């Protein structure tokens, strides 16, 4: 029978899944503070894994035209422009004039653009109001402009902003909801502790897509099956580094045994805090969080939701025993009602 810990709490997933003498758990540490948004990871992933194109349209909201992780984009480089006076707060530039942020208007206008990624649901349309709010930033006090940045001239129109870039990927959760709800056994836990879809088994039921708390896994149109990052299971088996980490020119994407990566990440955060980047924080590194820790975790420079990540995800199967209990009670109530309806009365 299933132990409660298999559904929630800290755990080494590969032995839990039945692997004997499993190799150490492997994963990604994505340090967004050195990401330059080059998208080499997206390209390398597509090349190695034979992932189809995800449309060539522009989304118009930022330099991110991939939009989201989909069945046809297993790496997604998020790109955020914030009106945060990152440079001007340093003394030599403190007196520089700063105009109003220009991007809320365009962010709102572009919130509902859609690109045909060849997947369902693919890149969903956004809400204009939150889009404007996020582009305006926390210190925003004025009216947003209705034009892309850098189009107006004059000192007053200069804006000061910072760019955040993050290469997003499947988190390979310790407690992977997609895997647990899969009714065909297509999703499985590898000996490296990663989560992989077997494409010859998947029948496209779509349950994993609703179950993923990060909105990673997605269905490919025409094909009908669900696809996501495999953490290059084939390359791992051959002792190689996954394609995206191999291609990353700044070592923003680091691959290795998860324990080692967690240590490295802790050192890096401490270093950044020392250097005056107090907003640096880790995301998904904690084995006691709602999904038991991610196999792919991140160093972020803002709140997770700014990058399109859920702030406090909890694996849905945590509550599964309670759900079955409620269903059992409801079923008993139903049977009792049926018996009572036929036994009582005579009309």
């Amino acid at each position, binding site marked *: 029978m*299933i132990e409660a810990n298999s559904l929630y709490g800290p755990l080494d997933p590969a032995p839990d899944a039945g692997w004997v003498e499993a190799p150490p758990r492997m994963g990604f540490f994505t340090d967004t503070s050195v990401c330059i948004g080059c998208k080499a990871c997206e390209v390398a992933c597509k090349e190695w894994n034979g992932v189809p194109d995800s449309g060539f*349209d*522009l*989304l*118009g909201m*930022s330099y991110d035209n991939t939009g989201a992780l989909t069945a046809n984009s297993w790496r997604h480089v*998020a790109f955020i422009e914030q009106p945060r006076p990152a440079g001007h707060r340093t003394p030599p530039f403190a007196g520089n004039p700063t105009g109003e942020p220009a991007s809320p208007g365009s*962010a*709102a206008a572009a*919130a509902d653009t859609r690109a*045909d990624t060849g997947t369902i*649901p693919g890149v*969903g*349309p956004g809400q*204009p*109001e*939150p*889009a404007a*709010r996020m582009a305006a930033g926390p210190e*925003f006090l004025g*009216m947003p402009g*209705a*034009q*892309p940045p850098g189009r*107006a*001239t004059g000192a*007053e129109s200069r804006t000061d902003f910072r760019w955040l870039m993050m290469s997003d990927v499947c988190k390979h959760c310790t407690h992977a*909801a997609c895997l*647990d709800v899969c*009714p*065909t056994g297509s999703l499985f836990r590898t000996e490296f502790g990663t989560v992989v879809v077997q494409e010859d*088994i*998947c029948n*496209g*039921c779509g349950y994993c*897509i*609703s179950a*993923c*708390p990060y909105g*990673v*896994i997605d*269905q490919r149109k*025409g*094909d009908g*099956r669900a696809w996501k990052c495999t953490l290059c299971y084939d390359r791992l088996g051959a002792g190689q580094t996954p394609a995206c980490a191999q291609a990353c020119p700044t070592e923003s994407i680091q691959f290795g045994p998860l324990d080692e990566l967690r240590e490295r990440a802790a050192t890096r955060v401490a270093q950044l805090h020392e250097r005056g980047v107090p907003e640096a924080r880790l995301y998904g590194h904690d084995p006691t969080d709602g999904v038991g820790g991610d196999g792919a975790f991140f160093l972020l420079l803002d709140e997770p939701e*700014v*990058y*399109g990540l*859920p*702030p*406090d995800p909890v694996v*849905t*199967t945590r509550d*599964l025993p309670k759900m*079955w209990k409620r*269903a059992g009670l409801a079923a008993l109530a*139903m049977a009792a*009602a049926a018996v009572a309806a036929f036994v*009582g*009365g005579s009309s």
Partner: protein
Amino acid sequence: MSSDRPPVGALFRRFRERLAAQAPALPGAPGSHGPKAGRSGEASYGSRATGAGARTDAGAVEAGLRPVPPRDVPPTDRRAGRRKGGGGEQLAVPPAEFTSYYGRPILKPPVWKWDIAAYLFSGGVAAGSSLLAAGGQLTGRPALRRAGRVTSLAAVTASAYFLIHDLGKPSRFHHMLRVAKPTSPMSVGTWILSAFGPAAGVAAVAEAAPWLPERGLLGLGRRLLPPVGHAAGLLAAATAPALATYTGVLLADTAVPSWHEAYPELPVIFAGSALASGAGVGLLAAPTGQAGPARRLAVAGAALELWGSHRVENRLGLLSEPYATGTPGRMLRAGRALTAVGVAGALVGRRNRVLSALSGGALLAAAACTRFGIFHGGVASARDPKYTVVPQRERARQGELAPDVNGPGVGPTGG
């Protein structure tokens, strides 16, 4: 895949045109690459002010929100349109403050199409009517038994069709039978259906016994079918409550916020609506003399269903909103009204065949409305990042407070 695709860059062109329409003085707009020196900041500020309208300065964030440019409508109509579109509904819950990635959803909304909502209904009808049939069988009400068994087979056949049709690869539907996983409600449901479907089928086929000839091989069937059908009918009825309630877990065991948080209520709603559907079948098909149990079932089912849907619309805070607004809200309200009408009709029309049948129809329609409302409410909650971020932020905030409260010191809150 490529036939209905817009040409490359079309979306961005449209976006730029929209920008140009909003701010005519925009230097970057297409066709206005004039002398840039002439268009200093002041000009564009002017256009911004116009875009923002005569709004008084009410809070920074408010100001940030309101001038949000719009789609393809002139400024004045825009504001009116927005108010018309969502005004009344948005008043219920104060606007939630949250950040997001360009307003895009965090979760992937369910890829399940209307088939699954229809299956929720047909599965409930199958379960409810097989209970009705078993009751009729055991208490000597042949009309209830016959109607229940036949409806049950029809509904379970429709269910199988909906479930397979919704798959991305329907030809691989049998892959569901590779494993039995209690962690996957869909796998559990597959096995429940595999037990229920054949039993309901045999029970329905047994109803054909009187039409068989009295002699020969078919005559043997005529004698054997009723007892076999009896056993099969009881087996179907025994699995029916599981069939009706597992779907609640099926929806709740997802990351879809409004489904997951409603996990205590969903099985109850679905059980109630299955009972009411079964009652509806009985009221439609059976003469008033035999329909007594169906009336009582209608009352019990309606009570469970109304209690459950009242709870999900009020207990979940922000996550109740998708069930109360928009199309899902209308469906659930229609479901409640039809349930009330159906129960009232069933009770009042004790001796009236037409009134009974009408109320049976109302109960079936109510069940369908409720199922579609719950289904689409959840889908709506996954589409909007608000329902993902705001409750999780709240939870994280309480999590940060919790160690002080639950720690070994159990200190007073003041600290």
